[in-house]
């Protein structure tokens, strides 16, 4: 078990937290207008990065607030944690230059 730094409460044991998956997944601007494919991608498809990953966590057995983190999915090391009202961390670096589905 590792200690996870809640941005409000400080370091707490991993069991107090709940994982929320990939961070910064935008809800479609006009949900009624997106294609089935775009909707499927919003509902079912998430990045599955090996390495640095921007993700959401909730301090569910503590202050019960959500926050974002940059964590390495290969080493499990937390690099940084961010309150939701803070600017997106390393947004440009992390935003995957999403190649359109090839070919």
């Amino acid at each position: 078990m590792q200690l996870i730094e809640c941005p409000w409460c400080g370091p707490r044991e991993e069991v107090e937290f709940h994982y929320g998956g990939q961070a910064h997944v935008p809800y479609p601007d006009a949900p009624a207008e997106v294609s089935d494919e775009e909707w499927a991608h919003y509902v079912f498809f998430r990045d599955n990065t090996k390495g640095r990953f921007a993700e959401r966590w909730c301090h569910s057995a503590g202050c019960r607030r959500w926050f974002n983190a940059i964590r390495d999915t290969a080493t499990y090391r937390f690099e940084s944690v961010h309150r939701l009202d803070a600017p997106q961390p390393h947004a440009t670096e992390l935003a995957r230059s999403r190649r359109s589905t090839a070919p």
Partner: protein
Amino acid sequence: MNPGPSHAPRTPGADLPEHPDFLWRDPEPKRSYDVVIVGGGGHGLATAHYLAKNHGITNVAVLEKGWLGGGNMARNTTIIRSNYLWDESSAIYEQSLKLWEGLEEDLGYPILFSQRGVLNLAHTLQDVRDSVRRVEANKLNGVDAEWLEPDEVRKVCPIVNTSTDIRYPVLGATYQPRAGIAKHDYVAWGFARRAHEAGIDLIQDCEVTGFATDGNRVTGVQTTRGTIAAGTVALCAAGHTSVLTDMLGIRVPVQSHPLQALVSELLEPVHPTVVMSNAVHVYVSQAHKGELVMGAGVDSYNGYGQRGAFHVIERQMAAAVELFPVFARAHLLRTWAGIVDTSPDASPIVGRTPYDNVYLNCGWGTGGFKATPGVGWALAHTIAHGEPHANVAPFTLDRFVTGALVDEHGAAAVAH
């Protein structure tokens, strides 16, 4: 102990018995193959075997970044069963179970397949209703299944605590007598040996690092041992699938998670069957040598580390001791983890991709060992004919767009 004279250092292990003959050779990769299979786990090796055996296709390479069967194939808890809820699932898992029943003969190699049955326990009224429904669905699909009341559960497995005085009393169980376990590394070696005998190259220490493409086709794979041209490519990389599909620009809805398991020290035979419980999340059998083999649920976060957190093991053991009081004195010997590729509907994703000659096989998550012969059979057929085999046809990537999901969450008891 004789450390030997200091001037003549002795080879470590020189006193051990001879290593057995290798079951496959370790070839240099050729420049080109008709079929390149990425991933030398159970699924890749079974696909290679059935390509040769059923379709006469032998100009094939299996590329493995580590050693053969060193991924989930050697890390799983080896539960084999076919009592899934939906027709699509029971078709492929039941065909796979039938292949298991003849596999030792087919491979000419011992795989210690033991049909000792599986109990899927029900602990709530909802569990009971779902379980009875699954039993009826199984019967309609020709899958052996029974609903057992608690006293019948006790007859099949006397060490399960069926008293009402526990936190999650056992209200009954589904029972599939033909289910069981096998020895996973022997299964990998058996497939590898047969594929090798057929002339297929099994290339270890060879990581695929990129793809050469030409429009809608992949022309070859870049590897740590050079570029290899490929007529067809099949991805059998389990937990690492996304790393490969990212290189191809294909988005696949899987998430990689650590999944842990553990064994106890060796014990006298105490546990005659396989017991799984969704509600308290434990599944346990006793291996041939005597160790209790238990699995946990996935660690919640995405992870590629082949290790997980100890609190998951601790909870898992607490649940096991509650259900099997006799385990309280057993000692934990070893824990480990694999990386499983979970999909949104807990069903696999097998078949075509946006590339004409690339086939996908992933999303088996926590339960793909039992499918090893079945998916190898179907994927080999798919590669040979360029069209999905009927057993994998429902498990397309585009079902997430069409909505034709095969939702086995919960319905299939616990997900292993």
